[in-house]
């Protein structure tokens, strides 16, 4: 019975991030993309990135037919999502984009025919050295339902988008230098205090910093650890042996 219950449950975001963490090849990110799509029950998830030297990579759940069609017709030039997100850094609901040109309308009609969906939410990501990525969810649903969905999940989606990107940076072929995820001494101290069960106020006092400052160190550490929240960040830091308590 318990087993049956377990398989019926959607994979939790923590479990998905755990798999992402263990990925050692870009190909493994593909299955993570599929899991995120299934977790949210949306039509598609696509993660696409441009490295610092201009090379492009991607993974996602669009059909091969659509990807081929997109490349063949050079839709990169017409796609309002690209025009509206490139070199920017705020999340965009596709409804905010300009679909008024004839080319864009035709493109949208085809995208819907190929099962992309009539709604989308894209999160542009800016990494170091001009690296750039786009994390997109799309679905076939009403405006009201989509607005509710994005409002409710946008912060987690931003976290997932950045976690995917941190992994992609780590796996970037030919990358050199120390791991991106190394924490500063201050971040290690902050996370250690929390792991010891101290409250934020106690931890701040112990480190002689304001609680506000502590929160920023914790947030920055959470990002570097690719964690979903503070508890998850503490667990990850312990797992990796970054902190010892």
């Amino acid at each position, binding site marked *: 019975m318990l087993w049956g219950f377990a398989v019926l449950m959607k994979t939790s975001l923590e479990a998905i991030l755990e798999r992402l963490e263990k990925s050692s090849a870009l190909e493994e990110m593909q299955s993570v993309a599929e899991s995120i799509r299934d977790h949210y029950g949306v039509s598609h998830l696509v993660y696409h990135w441009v490295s610092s030297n201009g090379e492009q990579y991607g993974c996602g759940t669009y059909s091969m037919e659509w990807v081929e069609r997109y490349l063949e017709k050079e839709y990169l030039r017409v796609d309002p999502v690209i025009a509206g997100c490139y070199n920017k850094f705020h999340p965009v609901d596709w409804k905010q984009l300009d679909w008024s040109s004839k080319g864009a309308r035709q493109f949208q009609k085809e995208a819907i025919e190929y099962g992309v969906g009539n709604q989308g939410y894209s999160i542009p990501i800016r990494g170091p050295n001009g690296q750039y990525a786009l994390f997109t969810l799309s679905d076939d649903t009403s405006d009201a339902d989509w607005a509710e969905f994005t409002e409710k999940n946008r912060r987690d989606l931003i976290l997932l988008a950045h976690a995917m990107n941190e992994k992609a940076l780590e796996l970037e072929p030919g990358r050199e230098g120390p791991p991106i995820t190394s924490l500063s001494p201050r971040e290690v101290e902050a996370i250690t205090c929390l792991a010891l069960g101290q409250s934020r106020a106690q931890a701040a006092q112990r480190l002689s910093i304001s609680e506000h400052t502590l929160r920023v160190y914790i*947030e920055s550490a959470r990002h570097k650890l690719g964690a979903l929240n503070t508890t998850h960040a503490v667990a990850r830091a312990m797992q990796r042996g970054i902190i010892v308590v």
Partner: protein
Amino acid sequence: MLRYIYAEDLHNYPLLRDTMFRDRALQFQERLGWEVSVDEQGFETDQYDDVDLNPLYVIWERADGRHGGSMRFLPTTGRTMVNEHFLHVTDGTEIRSGLIWECTRFCLAPDADANVAGALMLAGGELMDRFALRHFVGVFDARMIRIYSRIGAKPTVLGTIGEGRDAISVGLWEFSAEAKELVAKRAGLNLGLSDHWFRQSFDLYQPRLAAIA
């Protein structure tokens, strides 16, 4: 009115752009005495204004189309002033997160109305609210703290370098939904209008009235 404009789109607002960069020269070089570079046109710009980094400006535009006040945002996952120049203030911690943006060059025109600082803070609250951000990390003149306190948006100071005229601080802002309302109230603005300005900047598809008429 409040406008949210990426660097790559500033050319669409030449008067607003030019008066902003001139007011920045007046504030940072003449009034505050910071060591900033001002070009022959009287514009104060630095490397973080570069169109490749494409910062997002929040600008208060006056009725005559000129700059009344502004600030500049960059995501902390890319290049930022704090991580490149103020690491000693954060004990060597590079602040990076998709939920933290950097806010720099908070500037007011010399004869700006009293509510402009508050209007800019309200815009900060809008960015935080709509893009699910947690904090802004900022670089500002220590003497500005008084102004920030008055408009209901006092930052937590992480550290200050220099003294007196040369004092530059790095600090943090957080906004709650309640704080946004308070800041709006103090700036004499209502959230409906603020919402309208926000949409006007970020909704690229705006059905024209002419098409309906």
